[in-house]
C-alpha cells in the first residue's frame, strides 16, 4: 500500500517546540481559567487534591508556564531566523493570493457548490491563520500578562485605568485563543475525517500518503516531482 509511505511533517526539533507550546498552553489555559472560575467543579477537585496552598500554586504554575512558553517563542524566533528549515517554514507560512482562492474554493466545496477541494500546499490557509494567530496571541498574552504580573511596577505608569484594560485583554484573548485551539486546531487534528481519530504527526513527525493526498496534495506533487528529478 502506498499509505505506508511516510512524509516528514515535523522534525524532532519542531516536535519539541510544538510539545513545549502545547504543554505550556494547556497549563496556562487550565491555571488561567481556574482563576476565573474558582467555583467550577474541576477547579474545586484540583484544589482539594492539592490542598492548602492550591491557589498560590496555581499562580506560580501559571507564571512558570508563561516563562517557558515565552522561552519557546524566543527559541522559535531564533529558529526561523538562523536555520534554513526555519526560514523555509516562515516562507511557506506566509500568505499568498492563492490562500484567498483556496478559501473560496474550500467554501464552495464544503457548501456543496463545487465538487473539487482546493489543492492545498504544505500549509493550508487554515494552518497559516492558526500560526499567525498563535504569534499574535503569544505576544498579546505575554505583554498583558507581564503588566499584570509586575503590577506594582506598572501601576504607577499605566494606573488602574490601564490595569483594568490589561486584565480585560488578557481575559478575552485567552477565550479567543482557547476557543480557536478547541474549535479550529482540535477539529483538524482529531475530528477531521481525513485524519480521525488523530493526526499523529505531532509525535511521529510523519504523515501518511493518504493524509498527504487529502490534505497537502500540492506538496505531495512537489515532493514526487523532486524525487523524480533526483531519480533521473
Amino acid at each position, binding site marked *: 500500500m502506498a499509505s505506508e509511505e511516510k512524509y516528514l511533517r515535523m522534525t524532532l526539533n519542531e516536535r519539541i517546540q510544538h510539545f513545549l507550546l502545547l504543554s505550556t498552553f494547556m497549563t496556562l489555559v487550565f491555571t488561567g481559567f*481556574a*482563576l*476565573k472560575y*474558582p*467555583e467550577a467543579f474541576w*477547579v474545586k477537585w484540583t*484544589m482539594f487534591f492539592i490542598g492548602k496552598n*492550591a*491557589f*498560590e500554586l*496555581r499562580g506560580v504554575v501559571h507564571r512558570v508556564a508563561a516563562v517557558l512558553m515565552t522561552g519557546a517563542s524566543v527559541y522559535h524566533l531564533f529558529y526561523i531566523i538562523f536555520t534554513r528549515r526555519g526560514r523555509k517554514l516562515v516562507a511557506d507560512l506566509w500568505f499568498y493570493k492563492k490562500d484567498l482562492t483556496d478559501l473560496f474554493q*474550500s*467554501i464552495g*466545496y*464544503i*457548501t*456543496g457548490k463545487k465538487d473539487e477541494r482546493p489543492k492545498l500546499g504544505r500549509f493550508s490557509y487554515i494552518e497559516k491563520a492558526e500560526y499567525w494567530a498563535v504569534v499574535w496571541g503569544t505576544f498579546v498574552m505575554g505583554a498583558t500578562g507581564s503588566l*499584570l504580573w509586575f*503590577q*506594582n*511596577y*506598572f*501601576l*504607577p505608569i499605566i*494606573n*488602574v*485605568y490601564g490595569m*483594568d*484594560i490589561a*486584565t*480585560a*485583554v488578557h481575559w*478575552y*484573548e485567552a*477565550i*479567543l485563543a482557547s*476557543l*480557536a485551539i478547541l*474549535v*479550529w486546531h482540535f*477539529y483538524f487534528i482529531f*475530528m*477531521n*475525517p*481525513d485524519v480521525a481519530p488523530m493526526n499523529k504527526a505531532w509525535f511521529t513527525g510523519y504523515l501518511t500518503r493518504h493524509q498527504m493526498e487529502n490534505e497537502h496534495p500540492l506538496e505531495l506533487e512537489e515532493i514526487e516531482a523532486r524525487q523524480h528529478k533526483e531519480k533521473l
Partner: protein
Amino acid sequence: MLKSKIAALILLFVFVLVTGVVVFKFNLIRARGSDECFACHEDKTLAMDVNGKKKSIFVDPVLFKNSTHSAFDCKDCHEGYNPDEFPHNPKKVKINCRGCHEKAKSLENGVHKNNDCADCHNPHNQKPAKEMKANQTATCLKCHTNRNVTDYNTSIHAKKNVGCDGCHKSGHDAKKITKGEVVQVCGNCHGSHQKDFNNSIHQTVMKGGNKNTPTCIDCHGSHKIVGNKMSIESIACLKCHLDEKLFPGDQKGSAKFVAKYKTSIHSSIQIDGKQAAGCVDCHGNHMIESTNDPTKSTVRARMMETCGKCHTKEIDHYYKSSHGQAYKNGDNNAPTCFQCHGEHGINSVLRSDDFSKINQTEMCLSCHQDNRVNKNKETHLNDYKKSFHYIALQNGNTKAATCSNCHGPHEMKPASDPESQIYKKNVDGTCGQIGCHEQEKKDYSGSIHHTTLMSKENSDSPTCNSCHGAHQVVNTDSLGKDQGSKQKGIVKLCSNCHASVELVRNNNLPNVASNYNESFHGLAVRGGSNKAASCGSCHGNHNIRPSTDSLSTINKKNLGQTCGKCHPGADNVFLNTKMHILKAETDNPMLFWITRFYILMIIGVIGGMVLHNILDYRRKLKEKKAGQ
C-alpha cells in the same frame, strides 16, 4: 454656915450629876459600851482564828456611826457576848437579824434562803434601802462571779443602767427566770419585740412543744446581752441551724441548706465597712418567718421587697426587665432574685468561683434553651458556647462577656425596647462598654454604618452584632473558618447586605459585589487566597466611611496609602479610576470599546470557525461514503 454651904454645893453637884446622868444616861452607857468594843476593834489588823483561817474582826467606827445601825450598841446584835472572854462568843450564837427585820421573811422561799443577811448587807455599814437598791448590781456581782454573769458588765443593759433587779427583781424577791418566763420578762421592756416574737416561727414551734426552740436569751445571751447582728448570727442562728442533728437532711430548711450561707457573698464581703446581709436581714429579727407563709419576707411574692431593702438599684432594674415584667404578669416561671442568685448561697459575679461568668451561662441556659421561654427564638442561644466570648472565658479570660454583660445583669430588656442594652442603636455602646471593645466602638462611630443607623434611622444599617453575630460572636480570626479563608468570610459577610437585591435597591447602595467578585481580588479570594484583598482590606472593618469623607481609607487622598499596604508601587500614585467599575462606558471608555471589540471578534471568528468546521465535516463524511 460653912457646913450648910458645903451641903448645898454637894446637893447642887449631886443634882447636876443626877440630871446629867438622867439626860445622857443611854448615851453614856452606849458610848461607854461601844467605845469599849472599839477600843480594840478599831484596830485594822485585828483578826481571829476561825477554823484555822484568819478572819478580820475590824469594824470601822466612822462607817458604823454613819450607818443606819449607828443607834445600836454592839451588844444589841452580838447577844450573849462576854467582853472578858476570848473569843467573846464561845457558844457561837448566830446573829439574828430577823428579830428586828421581820419583813425579810420573804427570803425563806427565795433563791437566797440559804444565804446570811451579811452576804449582801454589811451590818456595820448598813445603808438605807434606797442606797442599797442603787448599788444592788454591784452587791450581786460580789458573789455571782461566774463568767456568764460578769459579762453583764459589757452588756447594753449595763450601759443603760438596767441592773440585775431589772430582770431578776430586787432585794429579797430575787429569783431565777425560767425558759418559759424569759419572753415575758424581756417583754416588760421590749414590748414590741415580744409581740413580733410571739408571731414568729420560733414561738410557733415552741408552743408545739419543741424544747430546742430559742427564746430571747438564746440569741442575745442571758447576761451579755448583744445587739450586734453578726454576733447574733454566728453564736445564735447558726449555732442551731448548722446542727445537722437538729435540722437533718438536705431539703429546704436543713442544716446543709443553711450552711450554704457560709459560702455566700453575704457572709464574706464587706462593702464600705458595712457588713453584708446576715440571717435577720432577710428573715427578720424577732419575727423570724416560715417560708411557707405567703405573707413572709422570704416567699417569692415578697422576695424583691426583701432584697430591695439593700439592693434598691438592682430591684428597680429587675422590675423593668423582661423577667420582672413576666413576673408582674403572673408568670410562675419568671425568675426572681433567688432563682439566679441562690437562696442561702447567695452569689455574685464579684466572686469568680461559684458564680463565675462561665457558670452564669449554664444558669441562663437552664431556662433559655430549646425555645422553652421564647418560642422559636432560642435555638441560637446554644451558639453562645461556640462564641469567641465563651472560648475566651474557658481559657481563663475573665473579662470576656457572658450573658449579663450584654443583656445587663438585672436590666434584661428585649431588643425591641429602646432602653434595652441590646436595642439596635444601643448595641455599640454595649459592646464598646468600658473594659470591652472601646477602640472598636470608637472606630465604628462615625462610620457610614453608624451614621446611617443613628441619624437616618435606617435600621437596615448594621451594628456590631449584624456582622459579628449576636450569641455566636466571632472575631476576625474565626470569621470564614468554614469557608477556607478570613477573606472569604468577610466578603460573604458584606455580601449579605451589599449583594442583596432587596437591600441594595431599598437603600440605594452601589452594586459593587459582582464587580468585586469578578476582579482579581475577588477571584483570588474566591479561589482560596488568604492574601488577596477582601472588602475590609480597603474599606476598613469598623471605620467604614464613604470615599467623600476625608477620613475614609478610600478617599482619593488616602487611596494610595491604602492600596500601598499590599502594592508598594501604589504608595505615591494618584489612582485615577473608580475601583468598582459599574459603568465602563463612562468610567473607562477604552476598556469599554476594547471589550466590545473582543466580544464581537470572538463571536465572529469562533462562529465562523464553527460554521466552517460543521460544513467541512459534513462534506468530508459524504465524500468518504461516496469513496467507499
